[in-house]
Structures are given as structure tokens and as C-alpha cells.
């Protein structure tokens, strides 16, 4: 007889079977209960996704013929959240052990309750890290022997149901693998719930039984566990094998509505004067221009490059352009280069090789390069006289046009240093006339922070007045 005739064969990856679990492990039964739950609800297998982490119980995804992801250790819930956000129609289930969900992924487990997404978390609690030989984990009972706590675990265990209740899960239940019909019932209710659902499933582990000389945890569960219709607060506690274990649904509430944001006060909007510059787009006739803006960090080099590229786009929207920027980790004081390419053809290489127009806001980049100024023979240099050592420009060919403007000095005297790039921009606009004045002004307005438009525009005008055509 073949496995393909099995009633669950549609949901099983039969080529992966027989499975790896120990003889007497009941994790496979949880897989069967999950399959039965899906069959009971009548879900299409294509709309079900299962995500798991690392562990014995996480091997379930390897045997389920649904859309499954075997994620990294402890990161099953974030992966499932990604699946859910990408396709909200999927019924996403997280299968994992106690070490995966509560131990290593504990933070994600807490966060899911807070976020309130529709995920079902089925946590198989077998009291420790059993795949690696049974080290003690977050749910190991007090006094239980594992290979890392040979004299008995000295730490009190966490209670998964209590954590889930406190974290704000909308569905919290406990079941065992020895009660598969009850487990199926809990799973169906969890999948029907539209919020984050959590089912703790107690599983007997052979290694735990042998180390602690328990004859059969399965029999112990059947003996001690009691299914209850209504549960009280005292029933939450379970980790002591001497007492009764309460099974059932601890909480089943609809998804809470998001409350009003109390901490965010609606800000009164001040009447801000709106600036507006009209410009007209036209064919610019630019074929290929390489513009480089270099200087010290903090002078607005990147901002200047952005202004330039926006202005070029304002003037001729059919142009192709790229902007690349290079700067160090320092906010202020390091070298900074912004490259702008404007081209009528599509751009294949986004970096400037030999600039046609070089805007030197300071000479730090040139000095770092060893004093050589890279410029096209027919190019133009606009240097900031107050910051650049002009002797660097002496050895250039006579065909190169050199202009000087004390942009930083002007900005410092009249406004603040941060608008030095706009002073430079005004000067460049007047002297080179590549881009129209109004286009640059509109670009400045677009990128200036609110409240500083006036200063930026005034700086631009100042630079424009300084220049000679």
C-alpha cells in the first residue's frame, strides 16, 4: 500500500517521509490535527501558509504540502508577518517549539500581541531544547534534569499562556498532543479568530522522559489534564506535574479597535506665507554636461547638487540626469563630492569622469587628491574665493574659464553659512547661464525646509547680483 492513498496525502509531502521524529514523539499528531482542522474549515491549500523556525516541531513545515517557509532560529514570527503583510488573504500559521518562539524569538512573540496582526501561533511546548540533546529552555520545569542542569533546573519556568494573555493576544488556548480532538477544536477556533492567536500545545519528549525518569508523559497528560469549558485565573498555571493541568480556551475576543492616539496632539497650523515662482519649461539644447560640486561637508554640497538637478528637470523635463554623492562619515568637516550628469541620451555611466563645470566650495577635495584640479580643457571653474586657495588653479590651460566668488563670506556676513550653496548657485546662474533663473528658484523652494525659503531665495539673489555675465 502506498502513502498516496492516505486521506491526508493531499497535504503531505510524501517524498520527504518517513519523518525524522523519535519513536513515541507526538509532534506528528499535531500535524495531523492541523490537517484535519484545515479540512474541517474547508480552506483551499493554496491560501494556507505555514512558517516555522528551527527545532523538532519546526520540521512540520517540511512535511506539510502547503506554502511553507523554514525560517532562521527564532525568526518565524517576523517572517510570517512579512508573508501576511505581502498577501493579507493568506491564512498564515506559525509552528514552532518553545525554544524557538519563547526562548530565542521571545521578543517577536511579545511584539506580535502588541501589533495585532492575524497570525496563528502554535507553540509546541516540550519543556526544553530537545533537538540538540535537551538543554534547558525557558519552559523547563523547576528541578527538571537536562544536560545543562544536571542537578535540576534552578530557574522558575515562564508560563506561555500567561505571557500571551499579558501581551494582548486575542485568542489564547492550551491543549496537549494527547487530546487531538480538543487540539483540533482549539486550532479551528484560533484560525477563525481575526487577531493574533496563540495555542500552547504540550508535547511529550522522549529525552525529557528519560532524563527525569518519567515513565510516560502521554499517560501523565491524559491523567492530569482536564478539559474545561470556562477557565479562571488559577487555571493559567501548569508547569507543575503534580497538579492538574487545565486545558481549554482562556481568551477568545474579537480584534480590538485601535484607540485614538492620545499622545499626538493635533498641531495648530500657523499661517505660513507661501512662496511661488513661475517658470517655463523649454528645450534646453543640452547634449551632455558633467557637473561636479565639491567642498567641505556642511556647506550644503549635496543640497546644492539636488537643487541643480531639480532646476535642470524644471527647465527641460526630457533631459536624463543622475546624481551621485560621495562623503565620509562625518557630518561636518570631511570632503564631499556631488556629481550631476545631464544628458539628452540615456545615461549608461552615472559618475562624472572629467567635469565640464566644476563648483569648488572648498579645496579640501583637491588637496586630498594631491593638488590636481580635474577639469575639461574647455570647462568652467567657479571657485569660492573665501575658501579655496586660488594658487591651485594657476597651472590650468588658458582655455579654462575661472570665476571667483566669496560665497561663504557673503553667506556668513548676510545670512548663515548653510546657504552658501545658494549664493554659489545664483552666481553660477548669472555667469554660465546653463539653467534659467526661475527654474533654479523653484528648485530651491522645493528643497528648502519650511520657514527658510525667504533666506534661501535672498541668498540666491545676492549671488546673482554679484555675478557678471
Amino acid at each position, binding site marked *: 500500500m502506498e502513502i498516496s492513498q492516505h486521506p*491526508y496525502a493531499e497535504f503531505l509531502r510524501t517524498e520527504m517521509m518517513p519523518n525524522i521524529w523519535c519513536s513515541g514523539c507526538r509532534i506528528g499528531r499535531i500535524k495531523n490535527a492541523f490537517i484535519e482542522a484545515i479540512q474541517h474549515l474547508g480552506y483551499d491549500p493554496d491560501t494556507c501558509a505555514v512558517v516555522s523556525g528551527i527545532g523538532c516541531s519546526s520540521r512540520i513545515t517540511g512535511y506539510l504540502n502547503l506554502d511553507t517557509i523554514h525560517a532562521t532560529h527564532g525568526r518565524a514570527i517576523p517572517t510570517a508577518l512579512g508573508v501576511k503583510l505581502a498577501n493579507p488573504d493568506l491564512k498564515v500559521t506559525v509552528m514552532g517549539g518553545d525554544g524557538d518562539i519563547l526562548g530565542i524569538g521571545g521578543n517577536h512573540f511579545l511584539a506580535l500581541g502588541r501589533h495585532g496582526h492575524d497570525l496563528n501561533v502554535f507553540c509546541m511546548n516540550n519543556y526544553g531544547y530537545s533537538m540538540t540533546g535537551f538543554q534547558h529552555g525557558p519552559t523547563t520545569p523547576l528541578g527538571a534534569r537536562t544536560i545543562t542542569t544536571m542537578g535540576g533546573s534552578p530557574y522558575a519556568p515562564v508560563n506561555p499562556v500567561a505571557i500571551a494573555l499579558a501581551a494582548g493576544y486575542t485568542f489564547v488556548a492550551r491543549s496537549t498532543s494527547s487530546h487531538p480532538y480538543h487540539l*483540533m477544536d482549539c486550532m479551528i477556533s484560533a484560525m477563525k479568530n481575526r487577531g493574533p492567536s496563540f495555542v500552547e500545545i504540550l508535547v511529550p519528549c*522522549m529525552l525529557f522522559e528519560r532524563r527525569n525518569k518519567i515513565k510516560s508523559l502521554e499517560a501523565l497528560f491524559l491523567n492530569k489534564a482536564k478539559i474545561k469549558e470556562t477557565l479562571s485565573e488559577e487555571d493559567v498555571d501548569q508547569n507543575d506535574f503534580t497538579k492538574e493541568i487545565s486545558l481549554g480556551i482562556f481568551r477568545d475576543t474579537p480584534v480590538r479597535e485601535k484607540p485614538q492616539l492620545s499622545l499626538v496632539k493635533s498641531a495648530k497650523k500657523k499661517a505660513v506665507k507661501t512662496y511661488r515662482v513661475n517658470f517655463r519649461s523649454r528645450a534646453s539644447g543640452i547634449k551632455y554636461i558633467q557637473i561636479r560640486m565639491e567642498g567641505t561637508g556642511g556647506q550644503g554640497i549635496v543640497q546644492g547638487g539636488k537643487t541643480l538637478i531639480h532646476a535642470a528637470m524644471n527647465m527641460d523635463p526630457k533631459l536624463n540626469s543622475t546624481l551621485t554623492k560621495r562623503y565620509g562619515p562625518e557630518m561636518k568637516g570631511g570632503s564631499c563630492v556631488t556629481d550631476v550628469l545631464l544628458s539628452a541620451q540615456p545615461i549608461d555611466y552615472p559618475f562624472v569622469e572629467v567635469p565640464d563645470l566644476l563648483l569648488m566650495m572648498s579645496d579640501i577635495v583637491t588637496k586630498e587628491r594631491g593638488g590636481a584640479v580635474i577639469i575639461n580643457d574647455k570647462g568652467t571653474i567657479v571657485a569660492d574665493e573665501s575658501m579655496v586657495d586660488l594658487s591651485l588653479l594657476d597651472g590650468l590651460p588658458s582655455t579654462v574659464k575661472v570665476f571667483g566668488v566669496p560665497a561663504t563670506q557673503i553667506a556668513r556676513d548676510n545670512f548663515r553659512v548653510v546657504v552658501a550653496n545658494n549664493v554659489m548657485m545664483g552666481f553660477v546662474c548669472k555667469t554660465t547661464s546653463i539653467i534659467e533663473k526661475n527654474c533654479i528658484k523653484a528648485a530651491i523652494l522645493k528643497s528648502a525646509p519650511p520657514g527658510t525659503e525667504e533666506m534661501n531665495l535672498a541668498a540666491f539673489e545676492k549671488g546673482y547680483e554679484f555675478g557678471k555675465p
Partner: protein
Amino acid sequence: MKNEVSIRRYWNIEHCTIPVGKVTIIAGFCKGGDDCDDCIKLCPEKVLERGTVPNERGYFPPVLVAEGKCTVCGRCQLYCSENAIFVEKTGERIVTPEEIAIREEKSQ
């Protein structure tokens, strides 16, 4: 239970019939032995018994002892972690008065 997940979903109580099933054991998958004898223990009709012939991995799969007695309750199929056993419904038979009497005695 809330969602009416019942072991009696194959049963037809109105017409007084009981399904007759065929039990299939996939011996190569079974991990039965001292640790696992759920299908034998939980079968209400005692259809299965522990086998004596080991499979290729050294486990002892159960053997069928009462071929026609299976009533397709589906317990063995659900409880088996390894999916090594399943039942198929082959037909139905009408409940005999003796059986009803036995059940009533048991319930009392």
C-alpha cells in the same frame, strides 16, 4: 466542543448503520514499539495487535487481527504521528440488536 469536531463524523445515527472500513498499515513508516502503541491502545474495536515481525528500521508495526470489525472512527489515522496507518470506508452495515444491547449495558 465548540466547533463540533466529533469522532463520529463517519457514523450515520439516523439510519442505524455503521460504516465498515478497511485498515491499511504502511509498515515502512511505522515507529511502533515500546514507546508508541497508540493505534493498538486507542482502537475501540481492538482491530490491531502488536506485530512480531520487525520492519527494515527495527520497529514493530501492528498487525490486523479482526479484519471486518473496523468502524472507521478514524482514531488510528489521526493519532499516528508517522501517518503509517489509515482507514477507508468500504461499505455500511445495519447495527444488530445485540450490539445496541451491549452498548446500552456499557453505558449504564
